[in-house]
């Protein structure tokens, strides 16, 4: 694992605290057209993912690793299909833990 360039777990809420930095999140694909993807974060924000060519169709979940462009968009470096069967609640709980009191336990 490359620890020199960590990509912290974020959800829609915590994305804005990492502007310009590399993050990692999971969204459910809502709409995918011409390399611009609209996805619903696990805490209910609509995020715009650029450069997500080859991403699966709705309602698949994808993991996106990329740079936080703005508080609601990510420039993707990689996308991974997580399938349809994914528990957003658990991932959201993980994101909260990773950005909370004990964030030093996470990369």
């Amino acid at each position, binding site marked *: 694992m490359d620890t020199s360039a960590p990509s912290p777990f974020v959800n829609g809420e915590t994305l804005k605290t990492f502007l310009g930095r590399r993050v990692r999140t999971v969204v459910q694909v809502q709409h995918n057209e011409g390399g611009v993807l609209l996805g619903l974060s696990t805490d209910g924000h609509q995020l715009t993912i650029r450069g997500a060519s080859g991403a699966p169709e709705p309602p698949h979940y994808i993991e996106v690793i990329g740079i936080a462009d703005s508080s609601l968009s990510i420039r993707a470096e990689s996308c991974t299909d997580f399938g349809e069967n994914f*528990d957003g*609640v*658990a991932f959201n*709980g*993980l994101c909260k*833990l990773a950005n*909370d*009191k*004990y964030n030093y336990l996470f990369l």
Partner: protein
Amino acid sequence: MASARLTPNGVGAALAGDTNLRPIVQVVNLRCVNVDGKGTPRSDRWRGLVSDGAETCPAMFAGQLSDLARSGLIRRGSVVQLDEYVINMVGGRRVIVVLNLTVLLAECDIIGNPVITPESESSNQNNPRVEQFNGTRQYGLAAGNPSPTRPNGNVPVFQPSVSGSSLNTPTRLSDKSPVFQPTAQPSYRPAPSYKNQGAIAKNEAPARIIPISSLNPYQGRWAIKGRVTAKGDIRRYHNAKGEGKVFNFDLLDSDGGEIRVACFNTQLDRFYEVVEVGKVYVVSRGNLKPVQRNYNHLNSEWEITLERDSSVDLCPDENSSIPSQQFNFRPISEIEDTPTGTILDIIGVAISVSPSTTVQKKNGTETLKRMIGLKDMSGRSVDLTMWGDFCNREGSQLQEMVERGVFPVLGVKTGRVNDFNGKCVGTISSSQLLIDPDLSEAHTLRQWFDGGGRDASTQSISRDHTPSASRNEVRMTVAKIKDDGLGMGDKPDWVTVKASIIFFKSDNFCYTACPTKEGDRQCNKKVTKGTSGLWVCDKCDKEFPECDYRYLLQLQIQDHSGTTWVTAFQETAQELLGCSALELVTYKENGDPRFAETMLSCLFKDYLLRLKVKEETYSDERRVKNTLVKVERFDPAAESRYLLDLLSRLVASY
């Protein structure tokens, strides 16, 4: 010599009726008298004189103390503390009947100069000594210490009113005057009336009415007056003496004393029709026996068995000085910390009623069961389990009311606390269920419920109803089962481990079982192949060409902390492997590869395994046995949520 301080005027105060004094006295005379117990071998009784250093008085020692006297632990000179005693009139004299005592000094010189009167001396009421006792009644009395004759944990809901018309003397309600009233010495006593008809004169005056709480087996003639609060059905029994029938009824008197009365055979015929619930009777004469707490939860230490010369007389003009029922309602929240088996009264609003279901009892017979959800102002709710006839009587009525949207108040008299998926309360045969009773508690509850209590959130103390996420499952690691010494207690421990199966013992995974059915229940005992080539069941004493195969599967489980052996029986093993024992046996006999595949498919996969952990003894060797009671396939999403919940609680606690 250790100093012995006798209670000053202990004898006088005790004779005057203070049964809570627990005086320290010296035995200055002791002798054995033989008594003829009815139907029992001759037994010895001990009587003598006790002294407080100045005065003496005759004492009789209860049968259970005979051993102490016989073995010499109590002898002339012993200094004892009288823990429990009653005062009786014997031949015109007051006698301390000692029920329980503590020996403080086995041997001691006679202290002081007690007036030792020969025991045979017959004194009467006008004896100056007795006068002296009366004159010094209040000596040594702690002010403001109203003295109930017997500690009574119950706070009666109905404060029994002191009725002037009542013949008995209330001994416990005279808070105003701290004067001790003699326990068994009420003010009213019919004058003796002796009929001179033969060689033996017999006192045929009606026996005096005494409070139920002061009944004891050392009185021959007594009468009590109480209201019938419950009447049992006729039960038929069969024992070594032959067949018989019996019924019970419970009496409550104006002092809050309760007692159960049993009528057998002839007495049943005499009194069964006479006794009606709610009416007041004077019961006189009968045999007092120690109460059997398994069946009787009244506040008396005795039970009455009526005999040939007993009488039960209706008091038609009785007013309301005796309440019709005595309740000791406890808030539901208190049940949480109440040990299993406790008998108590609760009252709550019925918020849910389950349909009746049929359940099988241990003896194979069937009974009805119904669950009622009760909530009260304590913010807790509890499941009331109704059994048998209650389901169709009160249960149906409650169900109909709840379905109509009416939530009735339900009072439960004599419920039993059970520990089944959390605490719940079950009915027993002597339970009484009261729907919308006319009680102040019921009215308060109704007001609370209608005024918002309906929507108040309550927490159930019966875990069955809580969602599975928060169910109080004890999650453990495999190593912790051993480290914490689980299963060593009286009851099994129930734990859940997340583990994978690493080994199946595949040679003896099942046993040959008896297929005989008794009702819905299968025998399931192990059968062996007899000489005839048929399967033989020793229990059923039958032979069969075919037998059943039931799982008895040994497997090894492992998590990150260690490994352990677990036994899985029929249902759980079948659920785990996904095929029946018979199928697996067939695969094995036919060399079918599915035999190995079935087991391999379960190896090294994660499961949530619920285990019953209990120490058992096998041929003098004790070891902790883990039994698989439930298998759940591991669900990563549910597990993640479980961990998140665990973490958030952990974080919150720091």
